[in-house]
């Protein structure tokens, strides 16, 4: 298993856990350390009389610890992996104790049961008529909301954006709330985003029109939904904010087995306690891009660990939709190994992006690999210059200097999320090395 300190720390639910874990990486704190090819385990001296039993299943990696912490993974689990990354020779024991074997066995069983349950659920005839009826009702409400939104959009354009004042903008928020009431929270969020962008930055009129234009497109598409392809209908469902059932995706989604290179991982704090994680993968044999979107509440961490710059054997189940990006990784995952970095031509990356926009214009993040890009400070912006194009980067101060240091003015392969205006870089690597040269640390 290929482990780096940075990669392990990236799994921490928050900074204080990462710091606490670093403090536990003294072998003296661990009276017992052991590992085999499946897992690592250890006993960590805590404040109680009995040491904590900590274990990590390399597949995933998945964590378990007997400590009472609500953080996941807890500092002990992280510290155990850090120690493993630091010095594998410390892990002297090789016969897994009963508490490790039991857990590993139960994990295997659980995964099997989950599969079984899914299969049963898929096979179950759950009164298809009732389900269809419920579905039809929700579409009806959404389509009604879209009609209302369409009229409202026309009103805004008839009145003109220049007249917008705080009072009129409150009307936009009211409209957003009506969309939520009509079970189309996705449309509501887009209205709210448009309202928040008014009078922000010099080009706000263009950007507001851009947002309203995409809403217009959604309204028109919803008005003739029944004649559209199932893939576009699925995209419209996402735009409306009606999530696909994950179990359904696992059961029926298009499946693809491959060794997936983790191109980058983005964490973003949404609300006070909600963290969104976006993981971008590229299949080594298929070249397919997969996007995993997860949320975690209150520092609970994520069930699956993904470390940028590793390669993992796994099966993806893709969500329906014309963009074909979003997927779920089917458990169990393989152990992370060396990455197989893609080396695309710039023109092909742009072509793929354009095709994706054509298929689904509502995609908010496009995965983009910039080959041979040089980060350049230009005024107070950081640009990634690749060939004759320069992409402005969305990047914080500390990350700016770390990225510059990694490049030294020489070209790097840069992966990021492109929104048509800014590239949010997540990781960089050198053409001749497999190690990550840089990865985003801040939000």
């Amino acid at each position, binding site marked *: 298993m290929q482990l780096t*300190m940075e990669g392990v720390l990236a799994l921490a639910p928050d900074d204080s856990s990462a710091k606490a874990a670093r*403090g536990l990486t*003294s072998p*003296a*704190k661990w009276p017992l350390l052991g590992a085999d090819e499946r897992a690592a385990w250890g006993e960590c*001296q805590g*404040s109680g*009389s009995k040491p904590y039993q900590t274990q990590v299943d390399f597949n995933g990696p998945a964590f378990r610890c007997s400590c009472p912490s609500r953080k996941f993974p807890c500092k002990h689990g992280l510290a155990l992996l850090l120690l493993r990354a*630091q*010095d594998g020779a410390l892990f002297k024991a090789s016969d897994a104790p009963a508490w490790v074997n039991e857990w590993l066995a139960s994990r295997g069983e659980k995964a099997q049961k989950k599969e079984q349950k899914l299969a049963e659920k898929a096979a179950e005839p759950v009164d298809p008529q009732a389900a269809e009826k419920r579905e039809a009702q929700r579409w009806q409400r959404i389509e009604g909301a879209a009609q209302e939104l369409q009229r409202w*959009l*026309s*009103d805004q*354009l*008839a*009145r*003109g*954006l*220049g*007249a917008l004042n705080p009072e009129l903008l409150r009307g936009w928020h009211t409209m957003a709330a009506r969309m939520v009431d009509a079970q189309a929270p996705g449309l509501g969020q887009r209205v709210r985003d448009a309202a928040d962008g008014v009078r922000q930055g010099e*080009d706000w*009129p*263009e*950007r507001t*029109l*851009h*947002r*309203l*234009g*995409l809403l*217009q497109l959604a309204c*028109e598409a919803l008005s003739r939904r029944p004649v559209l392809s199932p893939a576009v209908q699925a995209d419209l469902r996402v735009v409306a904010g009606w999530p696909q059932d994950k179990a359904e995706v696992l059961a029926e989604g298009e499946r693809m087995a491959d060794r997936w290179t983790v191109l980058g991982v983005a964490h973003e704090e949404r609300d006070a306690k909600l963290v969104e994680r976006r993981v971008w993968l590229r299949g080594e044999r298929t070249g397919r891009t997969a996007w995993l979107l997860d949320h975690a509440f209150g520092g609970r961490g994520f069930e699956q660990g993904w470390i940028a710059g590793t390669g993992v054997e796994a099966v993806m189940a893709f969500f329906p939709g014309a963009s074909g990006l979003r997927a779920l990784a089917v458990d169990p995952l393989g152990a992370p190994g060396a990455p197989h970095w893609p080396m695309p031509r710039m023109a092909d990356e*742009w072509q793929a*992006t*354009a095709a994706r*926009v*054509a298929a689904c*214009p509502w995609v908010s993040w496009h995965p983009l690999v910039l080959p041979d890009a*040089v980060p*350049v400070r230009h005024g107070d912006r950081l*640009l990634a*210059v690749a*060939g*004759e*194009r*320069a*992409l*402005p980067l969305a990047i914080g101060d500390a990350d700016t*200097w*770390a990225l*510059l*240091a*990694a490049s*030294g*003015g*020489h070209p790097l392969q840069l992966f990021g999320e*492109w929104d*048509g*205006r800014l590239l949010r870089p997540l990781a960089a690597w050198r053409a001749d090395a497999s190690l990550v040269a*840089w990865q985003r640390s801040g939000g």
Partner: protein
Amino acid sequence: MSRAWEPLLPAAMVGTDRQAGPLPTWPGEVGQLVAQVTAGDDPAANALRTAAILASCSLAGAQGESWAGPLPAPAGDETWPALGDAPLLRLILWALSDGPARMHHAVCLALARAGHRLPAALVPQALELGRRSLALRPLLGPVLGERGLWLAAQRDDWRYAAGVGQAGADEARWTDGTIEQRRAFLANERGRDPAGARERLAATLPELPAKERAELVAELAAGLSDVDEAFLDELRNDRSREVRQAALGLLLRVPHAAHPQRAAGRIAALLRHERVLLRKRWQIDAPAEAAADWKADQVDATRPQHESLGERGWWLYQLARQVPLAWWAEHTGLGPAELRDWALGTDWAEALLRAWRDVLFAAPDMAWCEALLEAWPHKLLRDDPAAVLALLPLERRERHWRRQLHNDQVDLGLVVSRVLAACPAGETLSADLSVDLARAVRQRAELGAASAGTLRQDWSLLQQLPELGGVLHLDALAPLADLPRPPDETPSYAHHVQALTQVIALRRALHSFVTSNTP
């Protein structure tokens, strides 16, 4: 944002109600598409549909901005390899982010000795440390590598490190180097050709800011002789107080220089050898009024506002600090300790002792250091004796510390704090004293929880442990490498003991790295 939006803006901003005319047209396929979907007669719907097309097409076609200019020059080729030893790197990463400042020095010194530079990922952090620590800057230069120079040049508060690369010609280090590089260059030349270095400095001096003038003038301390007097005499009239002080300090060390001799003449006039009963005794009286010729010799007649000395005491202090210490012994026939006791018995004790301490820093003298340290007049000299102690060679300093260590009245934490205060970064104690200190700490750690003076209750000693690990002799660290970790240890105990363990691991790793990388 693409300019494609511009034609749509007027109607969208004032509203299609007021600007109801037909929409403009767009060229090419996008224009055809717009024309196709805006055939209806609802102007607002037409504007929205146009926006929908422009939004999706501009998204599909967006490829950033065009870039025609040349790229900025990349960092130069490195002469030293980057440190690649992973376990050592991890310890260094810890030291730079959480370790004591002393270990920052140790890391830089060791890497430079082994001819390695920091890997690029650590360069921003190292530059940031140098921004906050002037003392670290001279050591950072070599280990930052070309990548460090290149990065430092791009940020104002890192520019201190943006000098001339290792491949740069010697002369370029003087003309274009950082202040550290220029100091090193001047010191080097001063060693080979003292007069040449002085003349080079004299020629450049007018162009330099005050702080750099003072720092470079200080480099003349090496190889000081009579021939430097004229130049230093000129500098006594420099615009900057710092430079004037530096010149006066150096003049104290030039044999037979005229300025200190004039100063000694003024003091001699204030001293009288008087008979008191059967014994002859030296008497001193502060000047009664300021003299006209003081100003030309940098004696300031105006007493500063917050000065603790009275006006006459202030005058005496100023006169006395221009006189070499050796003169007092010659003139009175008394040794440093006798002079100290004598001064304490006069009305002008504070003026004299402060003056002597100032002279001591400009021209260190071991006998005088010892005399002051033996009976540090805490009431008169409010600063810490550590700075005077630091003037002594290590072996003499250790004698002081050893005395304190074996004195049960002095708390171990206090001894350690004195050792750390007067032991500059980069220096380590002798094996003997280190063994004693390490043993003393270990004993405190092994005391039962209930006994007095146990390490876990001694917060002062506890928090100094990581730094102590940085000054003890490498061979004496073993007893501290595995201090007992009681199951009920406090978080603070765990933190400091863990940090000490890290420091020790780092020192050992650096040592073996240097040994295996030096021929």
